[in-house]
């Protein structure tokens, strides 16, 4: 299993190369070849995981644990340095606490040594690696064209692109590290690298706002991250030092694993931007769009839900699991509601990411096999559709110089191809027969049977959230296709690399929608079988048939489109006045010429961002503290 080492170290090598290369065309070649190799290697890892059982691998290097510890110290040292320089003393304080805890952990781990394999790989790792490798790689390639335009548009901002691309690949490397680590000390090391990378990427524009938001992201992730060393202390103090292995911990069952798992899940909640931590992810959109795409789709937030999904079997039927699920459910509802009131496309995407992660967390917290099945499907669908959406919005933003949804009115005539891809992305996010719907369906199936009456509480939350999501996505779709005056078609300025990445992602969205039963049969169900021993028939054949029929229906639609568009006689729209030829102007009362201008509903009296986030942050803090209380009380007993 040298492949795992390759996937962790190769992006690191590319990162190192990119950091020193100054010439743009060389960087281009390195990024593209690096992304292609990483993508292929990650797909190979996926293919291996289909055929084999979980594979464990001990790194044949002596004292490598010390190296990881030194790495941890270096990261903390760097964070302490920058936070002191920026006078962010809270960040410094938390880092220092974390470092002290970690030293205690190392002290105990050295005296009380258990040999466990450092790395491992199973079907879930395979799926995650494909997501990170393929989508992460595509985003890096997309960033080439995007960042060139970005700096042409913002000449005032420092151009440190070599470092930027270096960090992007470092991020991928750390993500591979997280998903392949069996030793939790290693996982924590990579975890901290992703926190650091996201900080560096968010502050890239180097404006005051960017720096402020970067520190907020750092702070929230450190607060969450501090729970992990505490979990290690709990593990080591109870004397079972081999439980420091992820696989060993999960197999130990709730009796031993629940408290450490709960603590690590709190870190996962922070990383996956659940309430009360969610504001860091919204703030992160000051960064260039490829960064947002990377943070939102394949890395960072996915690390958070990944670790919660890993511990899901431990949470089944436990109060801590229910509370985590409730945090997820409330996040789903609140973030969707806030998304209604937003007109900034990136903000809508950010809130919808938070909402979807909430749904994933809810599915994991419930911890049943069905819930986990839905969660993994959601992770896959969300990664692809969300990266497609972010990147297309980034492309549109560079063309129309606005990220406001209102300015995208009639975009379908100006950029038909890009609009088509946004529509595919949105459809992938909420419409039947695409992915998200399958997941929503599965999660409702999962919740209705789990831990009464809490399962029903989650069902009610999902029921409300479901209608809300339909509202904000559909009105965005409507804006794109509402054509007042056809605009000149103009897609020629879009860099070829951006366009081809968008094509690939759209194709992937559709392929995954078609192929989800295959993914389910060959990857998710075998994995669940090893986790839960017995798995009921998760998705019966008839339902798959029906979904395929619906997919088929959607696919024949484009052909009917051609027929209908030709057959109609064009007439001016009804304006309750005299239309001036076929333009958007009409003669109103007293002969005044008026132009029509339409805008979407944002319903911000009901779905006020400030109020809803204040309430849900409150609920979130309450639930988190409740979880910590239960852990303390449970640990004391």
């Amino acid at each position: 299993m040298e492949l795992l080492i390759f996937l962790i170290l190769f992006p690191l090598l590319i990162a190192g190369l990119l950091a020193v290369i100054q010439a743009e065309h060389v960087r281009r070649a390195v990024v593209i070849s690096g992304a292609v190799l990483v993508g292929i290697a990650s797909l190979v890892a996926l293919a291996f995981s289909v055929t084999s059982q979980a594979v464990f691998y001990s790194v044949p290097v002596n004292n490598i644990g010390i190296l990881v510890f030194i790495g941890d110290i270096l990261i903390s040292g760097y964070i302490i340095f920058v936070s002191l320089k920026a006078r962010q003393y809270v960040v410094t304080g938390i880092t220092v606490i974390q470092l002290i805890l970690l030293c205690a952990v190392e002290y105990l781990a050295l005296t009380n040594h258990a040999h466990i394999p450092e790395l491992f790989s199973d079907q879930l790792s395979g799926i995650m690696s494909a997501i990170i490798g393929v989508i992460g790689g595509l985003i890096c390639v997309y960033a080439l064209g995007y960042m060139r335009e970005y700096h042409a548009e913002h000449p005032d901002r420092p151009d440190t692109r070599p470092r930027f691309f270096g960090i992007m690949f470092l991020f991928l490397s750390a993500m591979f590290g997280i998903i392949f680590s069996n030793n939790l000390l290693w996982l924590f090391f990579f975890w901290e690298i992703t926190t650091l990378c996201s900080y560096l990427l968010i502050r890239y524009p180097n404006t005051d706002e960017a720096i402020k938001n970067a520190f907020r992201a750092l702070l929230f992730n450190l607060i969450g991250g501090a729970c992990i060393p505490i979990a290690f202390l709990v593990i080591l103090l109870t004397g079972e030092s081999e439980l420091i292995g992820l696989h060993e911990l999960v197999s130990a069952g709730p009796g031993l694993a629940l408290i450490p798992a709960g603590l690590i899940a709190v870190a996962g909640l922070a990383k996956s931007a659940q309430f009360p931590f969610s504001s860091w992810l919204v703030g992160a959109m000051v960064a260039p769009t490829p960064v947002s795409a990377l943070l939102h789709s394949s890395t960072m937030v996915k690390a958070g839900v990944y670790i919660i999904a890993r511990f899901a079997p431990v949470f089944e039927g436990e109060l801590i699991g229910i509370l985590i699920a409730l945090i997820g459910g409330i996040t789903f509802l609140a973030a969707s509601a806030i998304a209604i009131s937003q007109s900034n496309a990136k903000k809508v995407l950010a809130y919808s990411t938070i909402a979807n992660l909430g749904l994933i967390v809810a599915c994991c917290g419930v911890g049943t096999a069905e819930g986990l099945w839905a969660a993994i499907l959601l992770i896959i669908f969300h990664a692809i559709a969300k990266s497609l959406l972010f990147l297309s919005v980034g492309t549109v933003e560079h063309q129309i110089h606005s990220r406001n949804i209102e300015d995208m009115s009639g975009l379908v005539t100006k950029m038909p191809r890009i609009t088509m891809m946004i529509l595919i992305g949105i459809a992938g996010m909420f419409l039947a027969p695409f992915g998200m719907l399958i997941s929503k369906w599965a999660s409702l199936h999962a919740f209705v049977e789990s831990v009464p009456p809490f399962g029903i509480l989650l069902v009610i939350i999902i029921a409300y959230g479901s209608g809300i999501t339909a509202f904000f996505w559909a009105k965005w779709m409507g804006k794109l296709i509402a054509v007042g005056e056809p605009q000149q078609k103009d897609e020629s300025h879009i860099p070829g690399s951006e366009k081809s990445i968008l094509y690939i992602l759209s194709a992937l969205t559709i392929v995954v929608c078609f192929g989800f039963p295959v993914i389910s049969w060959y990857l998710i169900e075998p994995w669940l079988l090893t986790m839960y021993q017995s798995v009921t028939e998760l998705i019966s054949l008839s339902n798959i048939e029906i979904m395929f029929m619906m997919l088929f229906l959607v696919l024949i639609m484009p052909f009917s489109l051609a027929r209908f568009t030709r057959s109609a006689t064009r007439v001016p729209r009804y304006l309750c006045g005299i239309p001036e030829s076929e333009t958007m102007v009409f003669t109103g009362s007293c002969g005044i010429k008026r132009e029509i201008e339409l805008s979407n509903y944002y319903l911000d009296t009901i779905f006020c961002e400030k109020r809803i986030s204040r309430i849900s942050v409150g609920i979130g803090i309450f639930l988190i503290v409740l979880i910590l209380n239960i852990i303390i009380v449970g640990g004391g007993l």
Partner: protein
Amino acid sequence: MNPFLAAALFIILAPVVGVLITGLDRILTARMQGRVGPPVLQPWYDIRKLFQKKQVAVWGAQSFFIFCYLIFIIFTGALFFAGGDILLVIFAFTLGHVFLVLGAYVSYSPYAHIGAERELIQLMAVEPMIIIVAIGLYQVNDSFLVGDMINHPGLPILLLPGVFLGFIYILTFKLRKSPFDLATSHHAHQELVKGSTTEFSGFTLGMIELAHIYELVVMLGFIWLFFGNNLFLSAVAIVVIMVLEILVDNCTSRVRWQDAITSAWFVTLVAGAGNIFALSIM
């Protein structure tokens, strides 16, 4: 019954049943208003005439979306009567409506635009309750399949009174009846002209009318599920509820969208969510 046969029967018979119900609705409405009213088959004459008219539109794509709307509503109904998964039916229903909304957006007409926005608000108002209906029926029948639900030997409504009430409440939205006919109403003399359907005419409008008729039959089918295999009681319930809806339609005026959505969500929470929550505790 064979699911394919049931689906085929739905596709053929639903327009007949739907046209008759709509025709009787119009006569009853007229009588309540002191008029004689049109013949029972008037809805059918209307649709036939619409299909014969010349096709005009602001943009050709309009009829494409409406075609999708019709297809999905028929598909959903067929899935329902074939005994399929009720959650899937509900989600496919939502998808169908999104197509209607998109069709209204395309024209960029102010009236259709506001109609589309309101259509979405209605969708958002109704969705939680419909999902809760599915969950409630699951709790009683232990299955999400409509095919199993119609064989329930007892009366699920006895366990689901709140869910039933909530469903009746949102049924008014679904039947586009006052006070919740925000997006488009059966009458053109309102502030939005014909709202979301303003820019549709001829064949396209005919498809919308046909889709509404299919939808009506499916919504009434939901009432049936509350009475299990007791066909007589469910028929009585359907008649009573239709008369009630018509009465409400005739003696209320349209509410503002704020009131519509908040009241629908409130009723959903109190009657529907409370009911299924209680069931899960028991």
